[in-house]
């Protein structure tokens, strides 16, 4: 049995009061609840405040480039399907710089989990608008407010038939923890978009703002019903639904490579005999 201590306890570089602290805790609890050993989990992150999260966990980690964690995760998972691969990064990382990879990852449907710390702002670079910032959101770099319509990741993920789509809130860490747990356990690409107050740069979507609006989806909600899910996913404003918005059992990308079932690619080096056969095609 894993206990939470194995995931370590680190000093963070986050601001006091930041929602990231609760997300980290929820994540650790989820890892413990799923019984995953730290050395069987691989975190992949980008660059940003959110992307630092896996540094505060005792686990495998590849902390790569801003916006590029999903491709790294794709390569990593395909090379070793035995790993539990979790991508953890911000809204800027995944829906801004990495938007194209977000689309592709949903289409591929590898069995990986994506946790987005969605504070609706670029935290680490000091408060520019992110793709999820609301119209009119004023920052030093957007003094007239944001002009573009916000990106609703949950809605788009459902519209693209993502295999598992959930929304959590750092202010409800227990609920969030169960969402993350379900996401990890779900076989397929799982998105957990986590609403997270940024106390330093987002003075609009504060803890209070989220807390007032967020509600946990009714028990009788059927997350396998796509039509319902689309409607639920489009809810944003006075009421913001939390929970598993949508899930399906699409076939998983890695299953299309039958030999991946034999274990990590590193463990099956190329055999010289087979290579020789290959050359015959060119004679």
């Amino acid at each position, binding site marked *: 049995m894993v206990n939470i201590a194995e995931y370590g306890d680190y000093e963070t570089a986050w601001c006091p009061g930041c929602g990231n602290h609760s997300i980290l805790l929820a994540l650790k609890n989820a890892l413990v609840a799923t019984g995953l050993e730290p050395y069987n989990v691989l975190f992949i992150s980008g660059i940003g405040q959110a992307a630092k999260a896996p540094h505060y966990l005792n686990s495998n980690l590849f902390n790569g*480039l801003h916006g590029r964690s999903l491709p790294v995760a794709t390569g990593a998972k395909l090379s070793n399907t035995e790993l539990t691969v979790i991508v953890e990064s911000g809204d800027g990382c995944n829906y801004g710089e990495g938007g194209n990879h977000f689309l592709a990852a949903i289409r591929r449907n590898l069995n990986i989990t994506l946790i987005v710390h969605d504070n609706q702002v670029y935290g680490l670079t000091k408060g520019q608008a992110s793709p999820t910032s609301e119209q009119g959101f004023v920052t030093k770099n957007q003094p007239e407010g944001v002009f573009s319509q916000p990106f609703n990741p949950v809605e788009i993920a459902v519209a693209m038939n993502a295999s598992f789509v959930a929304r959590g809130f750092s202010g409800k860490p227990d609920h969030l923890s169960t969402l993350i747990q379900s996401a990890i356990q779900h076989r397929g690409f799982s998105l957990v978009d986590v609403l997270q107050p940024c106390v330093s740069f987002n003075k609009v979507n504060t803890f209070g703002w989220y807390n007032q609006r967020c509600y946990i989806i009714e028990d009788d909600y059927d997350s396998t019903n796509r039509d319902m899910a689309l409607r639920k996913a489009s809810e944003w404003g006075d009421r913001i639904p939390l929970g598993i918005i949508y899930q399906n059992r699409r076939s998983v990308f890695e299953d299309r*490579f039958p030999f991946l079932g034999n274990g990590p690619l590193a463990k099956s080096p190329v055999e010289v005999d087979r290579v020789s056969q290959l050359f015959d095609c060119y004679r």
Partner: protein
Amino acid sequence: MEKLDLNVVIAGEAGQGLVTLSQILTKTLVRAGYYIVVTQSYQSRIRGGHNSYALRISHREVVAPTEALDLLVALDQNSINLYLPELSDHGFILVDEKVSSTVHSRVIRAPLADLADDKFSNSTALGMVASLLGLHKDSVTRTLREFFDKHAPGTSDHNAESLAAGYDWILNYPVKFPKLHPSTLPEGRLTLNGNEAIALGSISAGMKFFAFYPMTPATSIATTLAGHAAQMEFVIEQAEDEISAVNMAVGASFTGAPAMVATSGGGFALMTETVSLAGMTETPVVIVVAQRPGPSTGLPTRTEQSDLEFVLHSGHGEFPRAIFTPGDVEQCFHLTIKAFQVAQKYNTPVFLLTDQFLADSYRSVGPFDLGQLSPLNPCLDSCVSANPHLTYLLTESGISPRIFPGMASQCVRASSSSELVIADSDEHTQDGHLTEDLSVRISMVEKRLRKIDGLKSEVVGPEFIGTAGPETLFVSWGSSRGSVIEAADILAGRGRSVATLNFLQVWPLIPENFVSILEAAKDVVAVEGNATGQFARLIRRETGFHIKKVIHRFDGLPITPKYILDRI
């Protein structure tokens, strides 16, 4: 009449089946023991326009393309117009009488429709070429049948009949076409182009992961690999863009799979941020850059050697790398293997820099000694560095022992949290976590750069051919090698004192390996497929030796011996 080498050009519009005809002919020739050099010239379109496939053939080794034109198979009138003035004295043009009404003593207007079904007229023409060249009907028929059995099952018989009809027709046609000298090469040689050789090299090296986004002239590496992936059990994936492709490769490599990507200039530009990531995280990755004329989209299906400086300096910040520049198809194979070995040993990005000419140039390649082959086995080398494991253990060589996530030494399943692997694109401590400790920074920069010493010890030195202390020394890198060698041969034949120095690896450079050779020559002439003499500049930067004469080519065509001789 016999000729030492013959140059056959098959030309016409894209989509006329030119490549099929050419490839069967090529394979037949290689099987018959001939050396060949193929130059493919095509446009950025699928149908129409003007394409050509030039096939230089000899029983002696040939290493360069040529402008000479001994036999043109013209699939359209346009090709006749273009090539007639270039025809050599003993040359002929073969054309369907329905395609061209050109009347000329050297134009053979063949009644293809009379001889066989029009649908298979390319096979009829192929029979004629085979016959003209003096190839055995059986051998070309066998190759043709193999081809159609694989690609268009059920059409073999018709094609073979057409071939025979063309072959026999020529036997009775009153031309004196020079015959090829009988070949003495042993059997078992391979017909490979540069891209295929890289694909086979990568598989032979032990590659387990390949990602790509299509881009001419690199795409056929992917296509070749796609054909072998299921059998060889490696992952191949077309990514949503080049950024994704190279990041996938980095991810796969991090978890233990030797990984490669292949692209061309514009696609590579998108990868440069990740080149730097691989340098920083010390993740091995092999990157093939098949050059084409830039800037930007440029001439997307032509050849050039203008991305040397770009590749050498790609990625922000400073970190070690190696760049191999194969000069022919065989070197494509061997240097790909070397690239994987070096990448894997030094945990850093390694490049293969080729170009469209070489990528598409078929050659007859001697069978590789696969007994020597020892594909990478990442598990054998994987080893925990400390307790807990330190991804970036400071060592004298700069190389830190690796393990892979979820696995301990030798890929035994990990069983404790002291076997974690933490890699970071930020500056990091030995354990892989990000740091802002500026003294750690210094030691990590130095650690990474120390790997350059090791990379230097692995360098494939330049190849010197010719007499020492020549009057003229040609310096080449990459695919210009063959033409430089042949140009030197020709000059030597004319009594000139000449030699060539051909670089198969352009980074790192070890001045001691070659400066004395440069200094010993009276005139040093660099031959480069670009407009600014990038390699000559690099040599000056690294050695102080100033190569004052550079022969440039940047019109999209490969450098030929004649091109060099005309400018010397």
